[in-house]
């Protein structure tokens, strides 16, 4: 029995493509946000509200990841922004190759903000760099406030956390202080936003953060 040294990263292929994407995005001065959550947290609705609110102010584009359908891309297309759909046919995460193919189908010239809506899943997307500047983890108040404890990898990988459906807080068994404590134990640097994509509550702060982000990136 003898040994051959290999010393190669398991995710090297993904990371190489992600590095190319990162450079492309930064050369174009496009801020890229990778949005992750469980299914049904309201990512698409938040995106719609955001596109509506920042229309005419920020040039935006969307990459929509979905396991089966292109329904979300159709919803997004109504806001007249470039949108590329990725259907993963059952796969539970987006990888850098899929994102590269998707962005090659849209014109990113002048786009200041690119949203990547990941597949609804809080486990697998944690491992995949998509060349984004920020990973954003979204949880809604209809889920448990122990979500960070159940999905520590994602909460550690993210740098921003959005709590959605705050309009339902009076009716659900969700302790938002406990939620925040749980999340901060895993990632003390997380930035928090509380929104209701339905009523528009909290949307202003979120949009302001987005606008600030595009400005510091030089646009």
């Amino acid at each position, binding site marked *: 029995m003898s040994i051959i040294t290999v*010393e190669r990263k398991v*995710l090297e292929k993904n990371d190489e493509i992600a590095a190319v994407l990162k450079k492309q995005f930064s050369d174009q001065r496009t801020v890229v946000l990778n949005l992750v959550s469980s299914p049904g947290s309201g990512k698409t609705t938040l995106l719609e509200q955001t596109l509506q609110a920042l229309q005419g102010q920020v040039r935006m584009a969307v990459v929509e990841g979905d396991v089966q359908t292109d329904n979300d891309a159709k919803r997004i297309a109504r806001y007249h922004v470039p949108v590329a759909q990725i259907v993963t046919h059952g796969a539970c995460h987006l990888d850098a190759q899929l994102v590269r193919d998707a962005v090659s189908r849209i014109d990113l010239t002048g786009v200041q903000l690119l949203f990547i809506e990941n597949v609804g899943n809080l486990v*697998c997307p944690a491992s995949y760099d998509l060349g984004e500047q920020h990973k954003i983890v979204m949880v809604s108040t209809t889920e448990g406030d122990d979500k960070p404890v159940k999905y520590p990898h994602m909460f550690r990988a993210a740098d921003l956390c959005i709590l959605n459906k705050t309009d339902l807080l009076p009716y659900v068994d969700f302790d938002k202080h406990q939620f925040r404590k749980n999340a901060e134990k895993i990632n003390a640097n997380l930035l928090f936003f509380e929104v209701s994509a339905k009523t528009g509550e909290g949307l202003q702060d979120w949009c302001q953060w987005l606008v600030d982000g595009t400005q510091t990136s030089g646009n």
Partner: protein
Amino acid sequence: MTSVCMHETAIAGNIIDIVTETGRRHPDVEIKRVRVVIGEMIAVVPELLLHAYDSLITDTPLQYSSLDLTIIPVTANCSQCDASFGIDEFEFTCPFCQSSSIQLTSGHEFYVKEVEVEPCPS
């Protein structure tokens, strides 16, 4: 989870690609064991990865190989009091001074370290 989620299959596929390339460069040997180092910060379930590997190598040149995982625990260094410690249960605070300003010193590893080979049976 609503979708069938097996990203361990994709990961096992990556490992197999890397090892197959190594095998091609050493046509005179047979790969018996594949040693992969994996930090606990990597969101992969070891049992699922082993299972995925075994099902993917059926009827390939790697069919007589087995995957060997070395799990690396998460450790950190406190920027406040300079203590070094292990992270249990994903509590990212210094157990000595309670600071959350810490740097992880291990746990993000994820690589194919080496393969154990035997001369090809001729």
